[in-house]
């Protein structure tokens, strides 16, 4: 990557472990929620981060937002370590939109107050401009001006999510972390919010990290996709490449599970062993091997390293080897 293409957001071998007590008289164990993640997002891109529950994507998001420090590794924004920045600078760089528009907005505050809160907390600009800034944001997210005086309880799910978007963007951040932004919304409202995210990205030149379990949504918005499993990135590539030619067996299983609204195709058979591992006691070698239909003896003994080539990045012995793939069922 050349100097000018330095990623706007970068994670360098980030780890996060939690110490978990196993009971009153039992010892403590280490839970590796994020185990050596290295990722880069270029300005203007949308990186989709997919993975199932327990893979560590939410922990990763919290570290990016400064809500949780990494146990080791570095997080850089515009080349500067995020840990070194004060909260105000951080909040100008990176903002969140969370999944649940019901719990992420204070029900006792008016919408106007909710949206202007970041400005007030960080003492940005002249207080006399705050009101007009909020009105500008309401307009930007497609909400009528009178909503300024409404309370979250008076708004629908979609409207609340728009308020969350307005609040995230009022600080004009560079990067927005969208953690399952539409998962709690009805289908017809999801589309409205996704369209809003698409148009705002173009209009404001934003960079997104889109965390979602909905692969169809990710495919629609993301320019690149990273797949996470038990705290590691197992594959990362340009969206089209990943969807058309997934190299990691877990990615393949995920894509096989997507149920597109096309009749006549039936329910796909997903090639995946049933047992989801205990993160407190991860399998040796490649943590995915017990569920992998392609697993060989190497897989339970050695941890595959991430290899990057022109197709993207993948951490898998199978992908590395020159073996022909078994025919797709």
């Amino acid at each position: 990557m050349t100097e000018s293409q330095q990623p706007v957001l970068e994670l360098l071998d980030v780890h996060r472990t939690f110490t978990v007590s196993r009971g009153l008289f039992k010892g403590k164990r280490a839970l590796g929620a994020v185990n050596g993640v290295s990722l880069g997002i270029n300005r203007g891109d949308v990186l989709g981060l997919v993975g199932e529950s327990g893979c560590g994507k939410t922990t990763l998001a919290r570290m990016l937002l400064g809500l949780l420090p990494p146990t080791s590794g570095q997080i850089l924004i515009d080349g500067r370590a995020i840990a070194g920045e004060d909260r105000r600078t951080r909040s100008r760089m990176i903002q969140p939109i969370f999944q649940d528009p019901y719990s992420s907005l204070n029900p006792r505050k008016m919408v106007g107050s909710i949206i202007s809160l970041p400005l007030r907390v960080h003492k940005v600009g002249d207080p006399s401009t705050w009101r007009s800034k909020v009105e500008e944001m309401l307009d930007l997210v497609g909400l009528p001006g009178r909503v300024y005086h409404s309370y979250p309880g008076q708004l629908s799910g979609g409207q609340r999510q728009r308020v969350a978007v307005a609040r995230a963007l009022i600080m004009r951040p560079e990067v927005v972390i969208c953690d399952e932004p539409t998962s709690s919304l009805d289908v017809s409202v999801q589309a409205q919010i996704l369209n809003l995210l698409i148009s705002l990205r173009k209009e404001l030149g934003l960079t997104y990290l889109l965390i979602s379990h909905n692969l169809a949504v990710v495919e629609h918005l993301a320019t690149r996709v990273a797949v996470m499993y038990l705290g590691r990135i197992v594959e990362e590539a340009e969206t089209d490449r990943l969807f058309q030619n997934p190299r990691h067996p877990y990615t393949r299983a995920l894509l096989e599970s997507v149920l597109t609204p096309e009749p006549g195709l039936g329910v796909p058979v997903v090639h995946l062993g049933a047992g989801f591992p205990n993160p407190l006691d991860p399998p040796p070698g490649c943590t995915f091997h017990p569920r992998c239909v392609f697993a060989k003896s190497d897989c339970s003994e050695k941890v595959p390293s991430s290899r990057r080539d022109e197709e993207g990045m993948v951490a898998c012995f199978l992908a590395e080897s020159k073996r022909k793939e078994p025919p797709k069922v």
Partner: protein
Amino acid sequence: MAKRQSKDNPDVVLEVEGLNVDISVAAGELHAVRDVSFIVRQGETLCLVGESGCGKSMTALAVMDLLPRAARRSAKALNFFSMDLLKLGEREMADIRGDRMAMIFQEPMTSLNPAYTIGNQLKEVIIRHRGVSHLEARQRAMFLLEKVGITAAESRLSQYPHQLSGGLRQRVMIAMALMCEPELIIADEPTTALDVTIQAQILHLLKDLQREFHMAMILITHDLGIVARIADRLAVIYAGQIVESGTVQEVFENSMHPYTHGLLSCIPVPGKTKRGEFLGSIPGMVPTPIGKLNGCSFRNRCSYAFQSCSGQNPEIRALSLNWGYRCLLEPEKLKSPCA
């Protein structure tokens, strides 16, 4: 709907005609389910599709007579095989529920009793309905646990719900529903709380079991992807009414009602929708059908709406034996969607 099979047809497992559910709320009468009619045949999967609050779950609860106390049910006909469910008392319904008609809910953790073992709960179903011995019940429980893909079935019997993952719990729910070999299964969002890969496995399992046990299934969901892959027929529900129903092929390839059409255009389909382009969307919000209702409930969000739409609630127009939609406009006036 258009000519339906008569209830004398042995093929029909459930016949619902003109079902209404009304609930008194502070703001007036909530008409949660309005004039809903459908049929499910043996071996068939019918999906009730709609967004939150549309009345699909209420419909299922009404059929099973599990409505909240404040809700009132009425129907022209509600027949399970040749039995008139409207005439059955609580005791008789309790005999049928779990035995010939079983329900699988969305949150297995709330449907499974945390204080009893899996084995206990499974056995209870068949002992209560069929009066078999504990040994027979245990054998049946193990048989079904294995059928639903749970390994080490014997050791699972002594486990408690909290010791199992969400996917396993849902499999236990399915096993529980099958204990008495029901003829009808009603599954309400059975995979919404599960991961994508587990969802595919559970749906696959349901289809396999349905074929094997020759059961009829009503699956309630908001996810049109699930509907396309698993259903034979579907009924799209909006503000308590069926606005379109037909075979999966008919409705997906040629949806007539503007709401169905709108819903289908909202969904990004990998490989089909162009990345970064705006998705179709339906402006506005779902209305809550309270009080006196005039005209078509969808008219405020409909791009085809015209004056008559506010006057009368449209009847269902039949396009073929089981395919119909609720709208004043003729098929030619409603542009067919691009695939």
